[in-house]
């Protein structure tokens, strides 16, 4: 991956103004053959991931007001600031400790496809519930942007979210948006660009109590996983999942995690 040399962020420049940013955005639909950065859209069900996806790619991925609308991953692209971005819309999931097929698609992608930036779309009216997933994703990757969506609904429900505070606590950029009305999309783009190019370095929050309790137990397992799969971005998380009895994750690793992602997952028919 090509990482730009860290340009110190300047303010008051033309680049920081929303109108300029949108002019710099070229929606590519599905016409993608090369890209500089791959961006994944993850988050709880029904938080507006597909809406953000459509706003950025100009595609019309189906959206609908019920959890579980998207069950397969969709891809699209855009060019921003002369860089090619591939954007992947994932099914919504309550956690990364997957149970159903659509959730597994999301988990495997974040875990194995190693997106350059994971945009975590959260429902700002249910922050606590959504943060549970955010924290799990931040355990796996340190290149993330939190998209604080549905701000219009939060306002209607008289909820105020202090996004600066949140950004400080999570250690990643937090951008308030109302994706359906295209509000905040330019700022989101800018943040994604910053993280992708390395202009902004994230220091994601890690749950400390996890490490204290279990590190001793899993240390040998981590070492073993690391030596078997040196490319795995977060061996510790995999070890935790294994310890938790989630053996399906091992199959995913065995297939390089991607085998499964490339085909439509045919599920095990050994019933009856």
């Amino acid at each position: 991956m090509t990482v730009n040399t860290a340009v110190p962020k300047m303010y008051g420049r033309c680049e920081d103004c929303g109108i300029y940013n949108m002019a710099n955005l070229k929606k590519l639909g599905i016409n993608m053959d090369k890209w500089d950065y791959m961006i994944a859209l993850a988050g709880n069900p029904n938080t507006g991931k597909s809406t953000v996806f459509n706003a950025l790619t100009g595609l019309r991925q189906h959206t609908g007001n019920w959890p579980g609308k998207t069950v397969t991953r969709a891809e699209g692209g855009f060019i921003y600031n002369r860089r090619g971005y591939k954007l992947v819309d994932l099914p919504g999931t309550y956690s990364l400790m997957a149970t159903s097929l659509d959730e597994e698609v999301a988990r495997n992608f974040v875990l194995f496809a190693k997106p350059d930036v994971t945009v975590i779309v959260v429902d700002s009216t249910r922050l606590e519930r959504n943060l549970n997933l955010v924290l799990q994703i931040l355990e796996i990757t340190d290149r993330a942007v939190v998209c604080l969506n549905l701000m219009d609904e939060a306002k209607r429900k008289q909820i105020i979210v202090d996004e600066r505070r949140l950004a400080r606590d999570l250690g990643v950029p937090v951008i308030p948006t109302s994706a359906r009305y295209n509000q905040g999309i330019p700022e989101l783009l800018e943040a994604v660009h910053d993280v992708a190019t390395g202009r902004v370095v994230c220091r994601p929050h890690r749950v400390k109590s996890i490490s204290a309790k279990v590190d001793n137990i899993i240390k040998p397992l981590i070492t073993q996983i690391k030596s078997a799969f040196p490319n795995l971005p977060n061996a510790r998380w995999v070890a935790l999942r294994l310890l938790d009895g989630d053996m399906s994750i091992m199959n995913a690793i065995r297939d390089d995690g991607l085998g499964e992602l490339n085909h439509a997952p045919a599920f095990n028919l050994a019933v009856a």
Partner: protein
Amino acid sequence: MSEQKVITLQHLKIGQHARVVSISQKCHGLERRRFIDLGILPGTIIVAEMRSPSGDLTAYLIRGSVIAFRSEQTRFINISIL
């Protein structure tokens, strides 16, 4: 006030608030995991919101979301009414 007697979630009446005490050990594996992923943990506040016309499914307000369960699941969740 705090030392209420413990009942299971399926007995919570519509409109009542409760605090989760524990998830029964009889509930394990995937089913337990699903509860936990949805944020049902000791200490969580749950409000019974509505019941389906046939009365089998009940929707609860849990950490800001309304989520419905069947009664054979909610009998595993021990609560104390607030």
